[in-house]
């Protein structure tokens, strides 16, 4: 009897087109949209080569400004690994036109031996142009300073034959040295758009609850003709419910497996390298979704549309808090009201994947797994209490 009911529960679920659309197809469609929209975000946040112009006037050709010119030439050199600029040398009118048409971020003009930066609006490219100009001026100042210092020392030490050329050369060498020793110790897994896909998995796990809900509805006498027929059948209620729930849990896992396959192979999403733990998280996540579905089906005494509405609303709100509609949302909630996301199953799933991807330790991951199990346990317990001993004199 168990197998019999399991088989038919399975068939009923798979033949329900709307259910299959929302639990199987919709996450895949949404994932495709995410991928199309977000695939370029992180690249566009990297520093691009900045288009600038330098006014080709008489002042630029003066010897005093050789430093500026050379520095910009070096920073615009295609061979240079740290290339910052693409520089055009143009007349002032032309530069104004380029700036007006947004073809350059700003231009540099040297008037009366002082460089001036002209930009259109505030922004990071503009800030960098200003910054580099200042850096060049500062280097010039360092050279002057150090040279003066050295010459003063030489004079103080009574040296009459001062080799100005040598001092100048020494100072230039010192000033052009790269003394910066910086070691980057950040984690390489820093791609924050991954969170979007983790919330997608979370959404799919919780949406799967609709399947469990439908199964329960089919065996509840007050939810329709099928329920009445099932209830009068000479078979223990436990068997009916457990076999239907097993069918919906498996359906849910099939949908999830398809989504995983699609996101991993077609969209190249990185879930970290620990496959057993990924599977464990998916299983517990789906269980949480299932128990949510059961709880809504049992505890809400209303028609199917209302139940579905509640389930979708809870899922979407949970996903919203865990960052689906804006990744920073998860961080804001985590930081300011952590208790909300500790109770939110969508966030537990998302955070579980996040900790697998970003952290080397597993404490946080197992904390999320435990939370999901507790969440599911509590909901199932409450539902069992609600499901037992239902009797109707007339219906």
């Amino acid at each position, binding site marked *: 009897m168990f197998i019999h009911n399991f088989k038919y529960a399975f068939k009923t679920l798979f033949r329900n087109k709307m259910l299959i*659309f*929302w639990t199987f197809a*919709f996450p895949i*469609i*949404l994932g495709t*949209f995410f991928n*199309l*929209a*977000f695939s*370029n975000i992180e690249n566009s946040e*990297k*520093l691009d080569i900045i288009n600038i112009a330098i006014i080709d006037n008489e002042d630029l050709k003066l010897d005093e400004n050789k430093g500026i010119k050379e520095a910009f030439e070096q920073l615009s050199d295609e061979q240079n690994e740290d290339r910052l600029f693409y520089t055009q040398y143009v007349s002032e009118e032309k530069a*104004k036109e380029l700036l007006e048409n*947004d073809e350059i971020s700003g231009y540099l003009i040297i008037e009366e031996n*002082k*460089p*001036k*930066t*002209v*930009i*259109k*609006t*505030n*922004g*990071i490219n503009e*800030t960098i142009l*200003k*910054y580099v*100009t*200042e*850096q060049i*001026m*500062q280097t010039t*100042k*360092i050279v002057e*300073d*150090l040279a003066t*210092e050295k010459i003063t020392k030489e004079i103080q030490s009574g040296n009459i034959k001062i080799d100005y050329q040598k001092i100048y050369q020494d100072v230039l060498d*010192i*000033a052009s*040295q*790269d*003394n*910066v020793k*910086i*070691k*980057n110790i*950040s*984690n390489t897994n820093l791609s*924050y758009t991954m969170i979007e896909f983790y919330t997608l998995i979370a959404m799919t796990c919780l949406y799967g609850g609709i399947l469990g809900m439908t199964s329960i509805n089919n065996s509840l006498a007050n939810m329709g003709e099928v329920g009445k027929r099932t209830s009068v059948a000479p078979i223990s209620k436990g068997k009916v419910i457990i076999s239907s729930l097993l069918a919906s849990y498996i359906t849910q896992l099939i949908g999830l497996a398809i989504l995983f396959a699609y996101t991993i192979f077609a969209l190249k999403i990185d879930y970290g390298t620990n496959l057993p733990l990924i599977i464990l998280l998916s299983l517990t996540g789906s269980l949480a979704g299932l128990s949510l579905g059961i709880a809504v089906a049992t505890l809400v005494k209303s028609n199917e549309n209302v139940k579905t509405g509640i389930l979708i609303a809870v899922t979407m709100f949970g996903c919203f808090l865990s960052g689906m*509609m*804006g*990744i*920073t949302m998860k*961080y804001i909630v*985590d*930081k300011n009201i952590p208790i909300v996301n500790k109770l939110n199953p969508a966030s537990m799933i998302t955070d579980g994947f*996040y900790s697998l991807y*970003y*952290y080397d330790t597993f404490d946080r991951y197992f904390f999320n797994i435990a939370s999901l199990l507790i969440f599911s346990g509590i909901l199932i317990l409450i539902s069992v209490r609600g499901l037992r001993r239902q009797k109707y004199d007339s219906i």
Partner: protein
Amino acid sequence: MTVFKTFLKVLNKCKFVIILYTVILLTFGAFNMTTSENSTNFVASKPDVLIINNDENVGVTKNLVEYITNNSNNVDVKNNEDAINDALFYREINYIIYIPQNYRQDILDGKNPEIEIKSTGDYQASYAEMLLSRYINIEVIYAKEIKDEDKLIEKINNTLAEQTEIEITSKLDTDSLSKATFYYNFASYSILAGAIYVICLILSSFNETKIRKRTIISSMNYKKHNRILLISNALLAIALWIFYVIISFIIVGKTMFSIQGVIYIVNSFIFTICALTIAFLIANLVNNKNAINGIVNVIALGSSFLCGAFVPVEWLPASVLKVAHILPTYWYIQTNELMKTIEKFDIESLKPVFINMGVIALFTIIFVIITNIISKRKRKIA
């Protein structure tokens, strides 16, 4: 009047959907409206940097911390490694500098200690690294020659104080305009999803076989019936549009009282009408209420993701934008984006705006024609 009354009755049942999409729009609208001061003076962009100082906060170390702090935004993060790592991942911090122990002494001894950093690798982080490198470079160069700490600090600060003159040409209030653009871009989702969903639900209620049969045998001319239905739905769409425009005045403020504001409004009106015709088309194609829900979600989310309603247009890959040309939302958003940069308003500069609006109008006409063809066929079958 009977038709209109029924229309209102059905509409009343759908009010939850309209409220839902409006709340979404408001939430995201307000989310993005964090006030930042507009200014036509130069304001340097500041990266978000966190400094973890393991050295004593005196002398050269203190000076380094001060320099970085003055040129970056201070971020308040709990001092534990997990919180810091989270903040870096979610880009609340772009750059973390770990000043090692004994940094001050090492510098004064003429050594060049290594500094550990964490970086998000984006442009803000690159800029933060420039700031740090510049400081260290100057510090190390002077430290070789100058042994007195106070003099060293003075030299460093004097050098860093060298500044260039800067001039800003644009007089546009770009900040407020980007807010308006963001709001209207996002509104495309609410208009599309809200209007299509509600109108389809209402029309499918009228199209239910039993109700349809009852309407056909009634004494009312079917043309009149259809006309009233069309007008009521148009009224609904326009009411929705007016509602969103009013919200935009509240959220965006005085920028809406400008030529740009007028264009935003006109543009969204044309788009609303286009959404109305899409709704009629879908309602004619599909009668199943559940299926409508799926289709509306796919169309609205798809248009919004592909055309740049959610993610800024400049961040979308070029290939996606090419595909997006076949969607009306793309042309609508292009106009909004143009508003951010146009300064002069004449025939020449507004030409692209008119072209965009023309394309949306063209889409509208095409949808109307297809709807007519389909409904004519359907009537013959019935």
